[in-house]
């Protein structure tokens, strides 16, 4: 159906496209944006203060305890990392599959990725007991013998995976923006703007030779990012799967986590895109209802996938005949934290099924609400995985609940402050849609002028 409906509405000329997309960068911000930005910034500052308190006083401020060695920070880390997947996925995998509709959402999705990974990346660093020694996690020569790191630890794999992912996705994002920076540079009226974007554009000229190298590189990065994005969440899932805790020690985790990541990622993309459409009405022509609908379809499908994962976990727990495994899963559904499990199931599996109806798929307010539910559900998925397995493991004498404190709440909420601050800034400073990529597809769907 993407063949029939136009990707860009309103017969835009090249000039119009440029002007539409560059508008937010060149005009003064609206009151609405300022309001959002300031509140996000306040939240961000509050977040920084909270983290400072936790780091300077001790992990004990959070609810983590014995036996729940991990809590909010790891939960929220996995949550953000998951969100950080849709971006690369849309731009890389959809690019490889030559999905033209990706062009208008890819840029923002990548931005979301980068910021989500930044937000996530803080947690593993700060959740350690002595964050000021985190550099010990890197294998560098030292005066201790030298004493190296333990490459068998999933956490070390994380260090490599997440940092690689952050670097590559940032590069991918930036390279994509270089020609557009050039556009802004050439349109620039004043010197500073010209200089800044001059630096950012690295002096891009757009000759045919450059373009041919450029396209090849873009293809390469896409090709590299695709396995990378899959590997990263696989490795994150190893943090759990490689341990021997009942409820963690499962082979299904890698695909399950990746599906969940795509799911939550698209959920977040839909949330943000609705904002963008409201904030910048002219973008409605580029981020059309069709785009939103496609993403909703993906949400629905991946929702089914995670649903399948939940179900199969229980089946395996029962089928394995392992009493510890069984106990954990029975406790998961019916125990002290049963409620969180059912929140997760209803938000992730049941509610997205509404997207079977075209009306709902294409209704902005409804899809917005659903996408919010998806975000909530996916946070609880990580909560369920982390806490319900830890608090009920092998020796009953160890069992104990997570001691949630106000600091946990502060950190969870504050992380959104960081993310939104960065995202809102991005909307103002960078071209939110790839100008150079949207132009070639501007006529797609107008099939030979018959309309």
């Amino acid at each position, binding site marked *: 159906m993407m063949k029939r409906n136009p990707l860009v509405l309103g017969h835009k000329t090249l000039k119009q496209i440029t002007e539409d997309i560059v508008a937010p960068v060149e005009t003064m911000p609206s009151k609405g944006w300022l309001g959002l930005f300031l509140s996000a910034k306040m939240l961000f500052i509050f977040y920084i203060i909270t983290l400072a308190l936790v780091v300077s006083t001790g992990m004990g401020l959070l609810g983590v305890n014995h036996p729940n060695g991990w809590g909010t920070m790891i939960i929220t880390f996995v949550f953000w990392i998951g969100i950080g997947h849709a971006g690369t996925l849309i731009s890389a995998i959809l690019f490889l599959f030559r999905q033209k509709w990706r062009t208008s959402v890819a840029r923002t999705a990548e931005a979301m990725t980068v910021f989500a990974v930044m937000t996530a990346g803080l947690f593993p660093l700060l959740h350690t007991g002595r964050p000021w020694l985190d550099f010990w996690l890197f294998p*560098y*020569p030292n*005066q*201790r*013998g030298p*004493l190296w790191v333990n490459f068998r630890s999933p956490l070390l794999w994380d260090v490599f995976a997440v940092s690689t992912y952050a670097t590559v996705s940032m590069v991918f994002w930036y390279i994509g923006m270089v020609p557009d920076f050039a556009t802004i540079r050439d349109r620039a009226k004043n*010197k*500073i703007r010209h*200089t800044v974007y*001059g630096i950012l554009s690295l002096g891009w000229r757009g000759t045919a030779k450059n373009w041919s190298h450029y396209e090849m590189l873009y293809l390469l990065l896409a090709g590299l990012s695709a396995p990378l994005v899959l590997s990263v969440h696989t490795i994150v899932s190893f943090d759990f799967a490689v341990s021997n805790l009942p409820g963690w020690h499962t082979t299904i985790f890698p695909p399950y986590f990746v599906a969940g990541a795509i799911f939550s990622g698209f959920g977040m993309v839909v949330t943000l895109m609705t904002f963008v459409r409201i904030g910048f009405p002219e973008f409605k022509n580029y981020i059309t209802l069709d785009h939103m609908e496609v993403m909703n379809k993906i949400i629905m499908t991946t929702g089914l996938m995670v649903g399948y994962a939940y179900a199969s976990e229980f089946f395996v727990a029962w089928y394995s005949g392992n009493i510890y495994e069984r106990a954990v899963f029975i406790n998961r559904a019916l125990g002290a934290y049963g409620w969180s499990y059912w929140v997760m199931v209803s938000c992730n599996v049941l509610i997205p099924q509404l997207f079977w109806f075209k009306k709902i798929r294409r209704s902005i307010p409804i899809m917005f609400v659903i996408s919010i539910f998806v975000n909530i559900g996916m946070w609880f998925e990580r909560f369920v995985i982390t806490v319900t397995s830890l608090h009920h493991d092998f020796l009953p004498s160890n069992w104990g609940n997570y001691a949630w404190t106000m600091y946990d709440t502060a950190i969870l909420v504050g992380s959104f402050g960081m993310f939104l601050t960065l995202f809102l800034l991005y909307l103002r400073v960078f071209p939110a849609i790839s100008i150079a990529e949207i132009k070639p597809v501007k006529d797609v769907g107008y099939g030979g002028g018959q309309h």
Partner: protein
Amino acid sequence: MVSLRASFAIVRNMSKIRIGNNTSFRLGFRVMLVMFAALTTLTLSSCDKFQPGIGYNRGYAPEQPIPFDHSLHVSQNKIQCQYCHNQVERSRDSNIPALSTCMNCHLTVKTDSPWIQKVRDAYDKKKSIEWVKVHMLPDHVQFNHSAHIARGVNCQTCHGPVETMQRIFQFSDLSMGWCVNCHRQPENKAPLNCSTCHN
């Protein structure tokens, strides 16, 4: 230090790159380069290949309340280390001799020296001398002198040519790498467990 110089070299060369004629841009570009250089330095700097024993107080030779001269006592007067540091074979720590030990000789020897008189006074007043500690290991390191002596390790191996020192100074950097490199030598048959030194 090498690493530092290396990185400055990098910075200078890089800033030579021909980059148009926009000063504000050049500034920005240089700043970027400096930051890059800073990063490389920081990574290199923690590498002992580049900076042997930095910060480990090798050569630390504080002034002592009494200018006790080891070269005099050991080389000229041929006093064994263990005569004063008499617990080194039994104890984890090698002791600083009690004043009574000094007085064994100095009741009669060189009694006119003002320093000796100082010791004498302290001794008579049942006081002590506050020596400045030279060799310091962190508290999470449990070094055992007696074990090493029993293995036949010379004092000099770690403390250097004490017999020639007029004022005692830290000879080895006492870093973990320094310990381990000796423990590693197969001929020493020394344990390499973490709990050998840390518990």
